[in-house]
């Protein structure tokens, strides 16, 4: 009897590595099509609105890039932790902390030269986000406390903290009751590129991606991170300080997420406000996984998910809930996970005598 069986791959298949994510995205949209149709929507119409909303005009395209920037940075942030199998799902809170600290600098010293204010804001954002990564990182590294739960719990704390500030001490008296801080001085705002809302953050994200790639591929530390991710035992055996590296990775991961928050307030909102991140930290997890933790793939996937977000706003006008974007995101991840089996195994027809 010929039978279909899964055979373990001897080595990585490049084709499978590229094909599986692409097919997962396609299948997720096919699933979404069925889902929308069953819910009584004209799926073709919803998708075409989504596409036009994301790419249809110059403005739409620029908005897609605007949304892709935080996803790129946050995706890179979590990808570093994921490499070491540290499940940092606290990027959301780290973004809020970064936004908070950067806003503090902007509000206090906005009148100085941008060449002083912007770097200080970046430093503050990185530090605050890094601290938000340091807490679960230290607990994980030295006391074995589950980082999935601590990072997630800290998200709620950070969001409440920013809410407290914008409803309370930092509230702009001129905001007529809206939870907004005063607007930053010009020197605390990241310059835009051209006449769009796309800002310097795009370049920062690109630089971070390149630096990540170089560090991971070519430095001794990057090598240690990769080894620890593969096997902690092997790393310990080779004399690597696993705990210290874990802590370092969580701080950098949190720091980059914090930088994401800084870039959002400095580049887009120009003030601290409630809901500064509409879940970028969570979407970043999907972006990182879909990009197979490769920095350049993450940049491209972030662009796709930026489009999904902007397109999602577009379909709201047609009466479709914005939640459809989350349904699609979840579906992408499901198909990707299901497809990963083809990266590890190959399908083969085998003739078997007897089991």
């Amino acid at each position, binding site marked *: 009897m010929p039978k279909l069986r899964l055979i373990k791959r001897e080595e990585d298949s490049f084709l499978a590595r590229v094909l599986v994510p692409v097919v997962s995205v396609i299948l997720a949209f096919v699933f979404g099509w069925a889902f929308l149709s069953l819910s009584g929507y004209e799926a073709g119409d919803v998708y075409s609105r989504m596409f036009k909303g994301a790419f249809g005009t110059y403005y739409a395209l620029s908005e897609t890039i605007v949304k892709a920037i935080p996803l790129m940075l946050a995706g890179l942030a979590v990808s570093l932790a994921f490499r070491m199998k540290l499940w940092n799902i606290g990027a959301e809170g780290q973004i809020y902390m970064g936004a908070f600290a950067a806003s503090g600098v902007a509000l206090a010293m906005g009148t100085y030269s941008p060449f002083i204010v912007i770097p200080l804001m970046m430093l503050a954002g990185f530090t605050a986000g890094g601290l938000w990564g340091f807490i679960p990182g230290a607990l994980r590294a030295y006391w074995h406390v589950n980082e*999935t739960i601590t990072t*997630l719990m*800290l998200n709620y704390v950070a969001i409440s903290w920013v809410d407290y500030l914008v409803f*309370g001490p930092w509230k702009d008296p001129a905001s007529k009751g809206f939870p907004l801080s005063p607007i930053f001085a010009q020197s605390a705002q990241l310059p835009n590129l051209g006449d769009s809302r796309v800002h310097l953050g795009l370049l920062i994200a690109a630089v971070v991606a390149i630096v990540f790639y170089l560090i991971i591929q070519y430095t001794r530390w990057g090598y240690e991170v990769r080894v620890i991710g593969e096997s902690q035992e092997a790393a310990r055996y080779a004399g690597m300080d696993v705990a210290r590296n874990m802590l370092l990775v969580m701080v950098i991961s949190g720091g980059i997420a914090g930088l994401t928050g800084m870039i959002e307030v400095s580049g887009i909102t120009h003030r601290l406000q409630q809901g500064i991140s509409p879940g970028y930290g969570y979407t970043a*997890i999907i972006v990182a996984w879909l990009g197979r933790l490769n920095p350049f793939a993450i940049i491209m996937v972030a662009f796709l998910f930026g489009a999904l977000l902007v397109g999602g706003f577009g379909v709201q006008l047609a009466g479709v809930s914005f939640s*459809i974007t989350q*349904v699609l995101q979840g579906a992408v991840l499901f198909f990707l996970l299901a497809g*990963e089996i083809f990266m590890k195994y190959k399908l083969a027809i085998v003739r078997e005598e007897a089991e």
Partner: protein
Amino acid sequence: MDTAAVAALLAATIVSGTPILFAAMGEILAERSGNLNLGVEGMMLVGAVSGFIVTLSTGNHWLGVFAAVVSGGLMAAIHAFITVTLRGNQVVSGLALTIFGTGFSGFLGKSYQGAPMFFSFKDLPIPVLSELPFVGKVLFSHDILVYISLILAFIIWYFMYRTKWGLTIRSVGENPQAADAVGISVSRVRYFCIMVGGMLAGLAGAYISLAYAPTWQENMTAGRGWIAVALVIFALWNPLRGILGAYLFGGVEALTYWLQILGVNISSFFLNMFPYIITIVVLVMVTVRSRDDAASPEALGLAYDREER
């Protein structure tokens, strides 16, 4: 505070702890079989919305509970298929389930946002017992799902520690290779535990939308699913210790609410942080105390591949 106020606070503690207890029991079951399902929050949300919609359209809250249980089980089946059959990464699959469930529930519940629930579960004081001073108010004057959650905790404990099936489940979570060798189907056991776990998460969601806060709000579980996951560690994978933990977290929530009502001079934003910070603190204390990880199922989080024996 007088006695009546203390009784009311403790009663509120139990009610706040009940959804966490349902969800934590489900997660205990799944993790005992060696599977980590981080999709509790998503399964709860889908349970909450489907329970709400079915109850509102049929007028029968038991049908709503049924719908919630079924939808929670189906959500869990996706996770089971990916992690057991396809041996995918359990952490990422659970996260996907939460993201998917959040979106799916928001999508389904869009036109019900903020709608009140007329057919919610009402308190069902137990005759005689509820007349007892203090204890009657604290323990015996709740809706029926509270009683069910407690009974269920005992049943699951008995099932897990005193029956052959329970032994089977635990052996699959500790050493799937050995279980397989004696003829136990590892995947069947895991499918069962993951899906029953999902059903309980769905029930937990329905408790929130049909009894605790009878309405539908997007994201109304507000992290309780995650607190339930943390609680499993606190409970050392034991449903009876789970009761204790659930009421501890329920107590923090009830206290937060009370302090707000009493007008204590702390910003409500700080009070809102309280349950999450307590969760971290408790998790740290429990983890540090049980350093050797003895309580954790040995094969937790690992996919079982027969060929890698």
